């Protein structure tokens, strides 16, 4: 055979023509010209590349929209009817920085390093190089390549920030740095012709001065909007991972605290969520206490959910071979599999490259069969098989049974070569399938080829979500959430107001939520927008309070001030009020409860969230924590790690150690 092959080689060499000399000269001249132009445009752009670290961090941000109509409550309880728009600003990943190897590990893609060793090796290389993405088309169009490349990082950042604006825009009358990025930027950048906005804009953060200590006698009421974002944690992680302390303005303590899952008591009553209040000693100040507010959103009854029929429609075209595409997708689905019930069924259909149904509908109980099929998937080639989407739907329909939920999950890096080329026809097709009971979600992998608009259109029409997956932990969040239906909004415009009892508390300080502050009168004004909360979401807010008579009171009594009216001896420390609107409603509902004085040590969750608040405060470098050290913060976090099934908390402790080392 070796001889045959040598023959083949020789024959093939002989058959290979010489390149056409004229074409060669032209192509090289063209390339040289583009090169020269590329250098010219580079100085302006370079700033972003070198200094614009934050903008690149933000570039990893994914956005997620989800529109639900009344049919959407299928996987959730029927009460969760909503039309909503959600942006998730999750794990940040900088595709082009020179990561140290351990950084890769921190980012989670390599968590399955033992099973995907090769992936990890490749990943390091690929993160450092530009992934050889699409190349410009011939002739005139190809000249755009040089202008396009420097832009690759920025559009997503702009887009996600623009999205944040529409979604988070809780406090519209305040100038919020991160919200100021014009949505127009997204449009500009999609034209491939406009340079990146000046760095100062892309690096703007939603910074606001740290909340100051308030005197209860003067200002007994504190009002803010909830915030379920976690983007700041992503920024912090990315910065620390590359060996730098995050910019102080990028640290939003509440987002760091809220990144982590906490097992707060679940709602029992008529409301879709349950506030849990506890008073605990302050780790960094003996003279004060912390009022910890944990709000747990209602979780749809996952146990009662009907069996799921999932059809994975997977793009196996050649460009999917990058480590952050097919290999990540395989790992992601593996994660998701473990969350399935034995009665759920899974089928896999591929398009492009290999084609057709590679896994017959298989019960999730037969994990090894499914895993084998996943392992056999291979990216390569680009032969469109057949109309992949119709096939996936056919499979889904064949799996459907009374009372079951069918969903097609399309995973792609942006190649919607799925057999229907007219976008309108595609939308109609998907909408029709949705009405017949099969839903569609779209998962985007990798960058540079992603057709975000089409993804959104597909998912919205399919009653599903479009998610961009850049790391394994993001995959876990998105896919597992998908199963539990945790992305269904359960309450809009959630505001919190706490009134402190001047007889008990002398001073208070809200930790974090600086960018979320509301005016006292806004609380009862239903027209004032605030944050939304999704099923299963949880929100934590922490006040540091100084009891009357404590040594730690910073503000001395006023000579002419009124003595505080001794409100009561009820033992109430304060009064907690929360307003929310049920999805689609315009009138808010009030939840209220007194805050009891009795202090506890707090659960592990409470203690960990406090450690995270301390982490954020230390990163901001404020004076609020006195001499409390990194070592003490790490000890508190380590001691409260609890089960930590996904390693989020362990990761945080690692980051704290990094920060400690960098902060010296």
């Amino acid at each position, binding site marked *: 055979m070796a001889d045959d092959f040598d023959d083949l080689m020789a024959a093939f060499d002989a058959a290979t023509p010489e*390149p*056409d000399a004229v074409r060669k000269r032209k192509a090289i001249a063209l390339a040289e010209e583009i090169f020269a132009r590329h250098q010219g445009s580079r100085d302006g752009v370079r700033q972003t590349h070198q200094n614009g670290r934050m903008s690149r961090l933000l570039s990893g941000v994914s956005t997620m929209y989800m529109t639900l109509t009344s049919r959407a409550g299928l996987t959730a309880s029927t009460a969760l009817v909503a039309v909503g728009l959600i942006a998730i600003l999750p794990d940040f990943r900088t595709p*082009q920085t020179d990561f140290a190897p351990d950084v890769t590990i921190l980012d989670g893609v390599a968590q399955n390093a033992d099973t995907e060793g090769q992936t990890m090796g490749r990943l390091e290389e690929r993160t450092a190089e*530009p992934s050889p993405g699409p190349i410009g088309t011939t002739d005139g169009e190809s000249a755009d390549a040089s202008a396009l490349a420097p832009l690759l990082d920025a559009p997503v950042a702009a887009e996600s920030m623009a999205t944040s604006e529409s979604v988070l825009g809780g406090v519209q009358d305040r100038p919020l740095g991160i919200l100021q990025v014009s949505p127009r930027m997204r449009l500009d950048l999609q034209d491939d012709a406009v340079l990146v906005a000046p760095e100062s804009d892309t690096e703007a953060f939603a910074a606001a001065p740290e909340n100051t200590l308030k005197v209860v006698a003067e200002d007994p009421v504190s009002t803010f909007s909830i915030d379920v974002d976690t983007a700041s944690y992503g920024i912090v992680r990315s910065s620390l991972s590359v060996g730098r302390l995050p910019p102080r303005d990028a640290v939003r303590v509440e987002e760091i605290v809220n990144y982590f899952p906490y097992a707060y008591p679940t709602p029992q009553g008529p409301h879709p969520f349950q506030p849990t209040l506890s008073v605990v000693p302050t780790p960094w100040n003996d003279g004060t206490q912390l009022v910890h507010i944990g709000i747990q959103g209602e979780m749809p009854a996952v146990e009662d959910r009907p069996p799921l029929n999932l059809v994975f429609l997977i793009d196996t075209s*050649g*460009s999917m071979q990058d480590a952050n595409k097919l290999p990540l997708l395989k790992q992601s689905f593996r994660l998701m599999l473990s969350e399935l019930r034995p009665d759920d069924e899974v089928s896999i259909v591929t398009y492009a490259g290999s084609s057709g149904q590679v896994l017959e509908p298989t019960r999730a109980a037969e994990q090894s069969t499914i895993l084998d099929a996943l392992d056999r998937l291979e990216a390569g080639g680009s032969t469109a098989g057949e109309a992949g989407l119709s096939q996936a739907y056919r499979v889904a329909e064949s799996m459907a049974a009374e009372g079951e939920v069918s969903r097609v999950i399309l995973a792609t890096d942006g190649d919607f070569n799925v057999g229907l080329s007219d976008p309108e026809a595609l939308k109609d097709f998907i909408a029709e399938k949705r009405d017949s009971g099969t839903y569609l979600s779209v998962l985007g992998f990798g960058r540079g080829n992603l057709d975000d608009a089409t993804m959104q259109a597909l998912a919205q029409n399919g009653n599903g979500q479009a998610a961009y997956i850049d790391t394994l932990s993001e995959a876990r969040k998105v896919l597992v959430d998908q199963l539990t239906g945790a992305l269904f909004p359960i309450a809009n415009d959630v505001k919190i107001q706490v009134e402190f009892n001047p007889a008990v508390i002398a001073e208070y300080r809200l930790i974090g939520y600086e960018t979320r502050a509301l005016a006292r009168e806004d609380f009862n004004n239903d027209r004032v927008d605030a944050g939304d909360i999704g099923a299963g979401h949880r929100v934590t807010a922490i006040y540091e309070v100084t009891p009357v008579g404590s040594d730690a009171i910073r503000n001395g009594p006023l000579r002419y001030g009124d003595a505080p009216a001794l409100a009561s001896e009820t033992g109430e420390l304060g009064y907690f009020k929360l307003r929310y609107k049920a999805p689609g409603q315009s009138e808010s509902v009030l939840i209220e409860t007194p805050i009891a004085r009795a202090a506890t040590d707090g659960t592990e969750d409470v203690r960990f969230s406090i450690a995270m608040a301390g982490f954020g405060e230390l990163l901001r470098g404020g004076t609020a924590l006195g001499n409390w050290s990194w070592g003490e913060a790490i000890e508190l976090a380590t001691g409260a790690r609890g089960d930590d099934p996904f390693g989020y908390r362990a990761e945080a402790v690692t980051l704290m150690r990094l920060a400690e080392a960098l902060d010296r």
Partner: protein
Amino acid sequence: MRMKTSDDALARAAAAGDAEAFSSLLHRHYDRIFRLAFRVTGVASDAEDLTQDICAALPAKLSAFRAEAQFTTWLYRIVMNAAHDRRRRHASHAKAAKGWGEVEVARRAEATEAAEALDWLTRAMRALPNDLRDTVALVLDDVTHAEAAEILGLSEGTVSWRMSEAKKRLRAMKEAEHG
């Protein structure tokens, strides 16, 4: 003296903005890019177009070359990805014009027509599925299985398997032809 400088050094210089280094690099590798492009497309005019696309895109790609991989490995990967993209674009453009079935028929007809003009070997190569052909094209260019694996983002075992599969098919085709 430049001609003696290593590819990697040239690439790094070019990445840093050295136009002369870029020019040398391109002259040095143009034929290689073209050869590989021909082997994956099987048609000289397509190969010329593909090579030009790659040349035009190289300045942008090169500015981020970090020398983590050997230059040639990096370059091969760019060629391969460009070829994938081209095929894909071709398929979707064609599809935008007609229904998929018609396109497939048209494509086959076109392929048959073109194939008659080519010698047996090229026809055989074109008869291979894309993934096998890409692998063969690389290995024919004196790339080791390990390198090919790196370029294609596969395991070395997969490359070896593809090679033996390709050889099997080529031999079968040869036998069918002669027998």
